């Protein structure tokens, strides 16, 4: 089984790295890192803080773009282009195919985020900044976010066409980052219907803020490694839930 998953993952990785879409997403992220210096000049705040804040956000956007442009369409495109016929008619289970796709997508996203992170660190050093554990925590957090974003993209891709899956992934990203803030915002209105709705949303949507440590980097706060560990574990669990759902849907699918 491991072999077949690895074979699919390798093909997914090769397909993705040779696709022009990846280059565009990567160029966009690097552009954001470079542009962070311009914002530093324009901002009244600390220049280095702006570079860190904006370029780390660029990495987050890169993770989202990859999930939307590469991940969400990866299964749906295989069905549309019928490459799935030649794969699933082999000695390969549907769950192995999905797991392989997921592995390849995560590997591509991690590679891109890490390369962009190295570039971003170099950029920060050029402008006199320093690297600390907060920076490492922020990048690790983004890598954890990659896990769940790609699982959601794959889940939606197993259900719908690439466009719907991409938009769904974007909505999930926005909701996942906003759910905690929205809940806190309306918490004051205890007993109201709105508060109850946001409380439910907070419970059912994975909280991506649990692995967002960009503020710790820019504000110089100590890194709560335990929190990062719990956040990472929750992302792994959520990823498993979405992948399990995708496998269930895909198993019943008629081609």
């Amino acid at each position, binding site marked *: 089984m491991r072999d*077949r998953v690895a074979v699919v993952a390798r093909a997914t990785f090769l397909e993705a790295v040779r696709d022009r879409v990846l280059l565009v997403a990567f160029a966009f992220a690097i552009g954001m890192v470079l542009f962070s210096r311009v914002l530093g000049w324009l901002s009244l705040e600390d220049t280095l803080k702006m570079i860190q804040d904006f370029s780390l956000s660029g990495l987050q956007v890169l993770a989202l773009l990859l999930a939307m442009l590469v991940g969400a369409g990866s299964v749906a495109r295989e069905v549309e282009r019928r*490459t799935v016929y030649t794969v699933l008619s082999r*000695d*390969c289970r549907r769950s192995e195919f999905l797991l392989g796709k997921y592995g390849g997508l995560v590997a591509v996203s991690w590679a891109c985020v890490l390369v962009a992170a190295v570039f971003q660190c170099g950029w920060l050093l050029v402008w006199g900044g320093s690297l600390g554990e907060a920076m490492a925590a922020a990048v690790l957090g983004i890598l954890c976010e990659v896990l769940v974003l790609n699982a959601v993209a794959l889940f939606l891709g197993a259900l719908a066409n690439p466009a719907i899956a991409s938009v769904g992934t974007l909505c999930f990203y926005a909701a996942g980052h906003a759910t905690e803030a929205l809940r806190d915002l309306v918490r004051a209105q205890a007993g109201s219907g709105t508060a109850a709705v946001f409380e439910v949303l907070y419970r059912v949507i994975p909280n991506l803020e649990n692995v967002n440590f960009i503020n710790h980097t820019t504000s110089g706060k100590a890194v709560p490694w335990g929190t990062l560990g719990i956040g990472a574990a929750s992302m792994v669990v959520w990823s498993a839930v979405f992948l399990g759902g995708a496998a269930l849907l895909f198993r019943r699918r008629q081609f």
Partner: protein
Amino acid sequence: MSPPPETVVSTEDLHKTFRPEVFGPPVTALRGVSFAVRRGECFGYLGQNGAGKTTTLKILTGLMTPTRGSATLLGCPCGDEAARQGLGYLPENPYFYEHLTPREALDFYGRLSGVAPSDVAARTPRLLARVQLEDVADRRIRGFSKGMRQRLGIAAALVSEPPLLLLDEPLSGLDPHGRHLVKEIVLEERAAGRTVFMCSHVLADVEELCDRVVVLHGGVVVREGRIHELLDGEPTSFELSADRVPPYLRARIAAAASLLRESGEKLTAVLPGAALGPELAAAVHAGGGRVLSLVPERETLESWFVRVTGPETARVREAS
């Protein structure tokens, strides 16, 4: 180890109904299809567009499940891993990962089928040479023509050296050289003892390659048998060539012929039916003329297919 099953593919009362669109009306693609393919034979699965051929293949490969009935491959229920292990499948208009090269694609399909990487590496150059793609082995599939993709599809189906090949329109999109090459491969594989199950619209090729055919029409098997048995029978017409034909016979032949060519003394006529040709040839001979040749013309698979899948067959089936 148990011997390989004699029946390699078998379907029993296969039904399939599905909705092409979520809120659209249901479509019944198969209505009780039953047939069996024996080990080592080349089996043709024929039918018009929409007859249910591809649906059957999808069920056999596990891409679809039947609404009712059952199907087995190599003695195992379709969709089982064990069934797929011995299967090489070429879908109609095969698609590949566009950014891979043929070498990478064969490595991918071979390893996916459980072939050891060293074996895949050894087979790949041989297979690429066999389908005449060795010169483009390291070029991305993205720029390939339809024929090149088709030949790569054949190579991908063969990479695991499966005992059963399911080929959906294997000769589609190929130029004459490509068609000749693929036909040769099919014959070689059959000679090597593999079972070949093929769907094709090119009936001349089916006639050339297949031992036995099943004809599907509107999701129902309307004919099944060995090609020579299905086509054998009385000649449908005779081509008579003669010269020095007496005028009264010449007029009779001209009136009866579906096609007539005259060149001086010589005439050539196509005479419909199984009796008219020999009868008029005997008359020419008796009348002092010279019969140059009398060639019986039998039905081709194509004309037979048109007849058995024509509107008359549909009406008879509806009525029954």
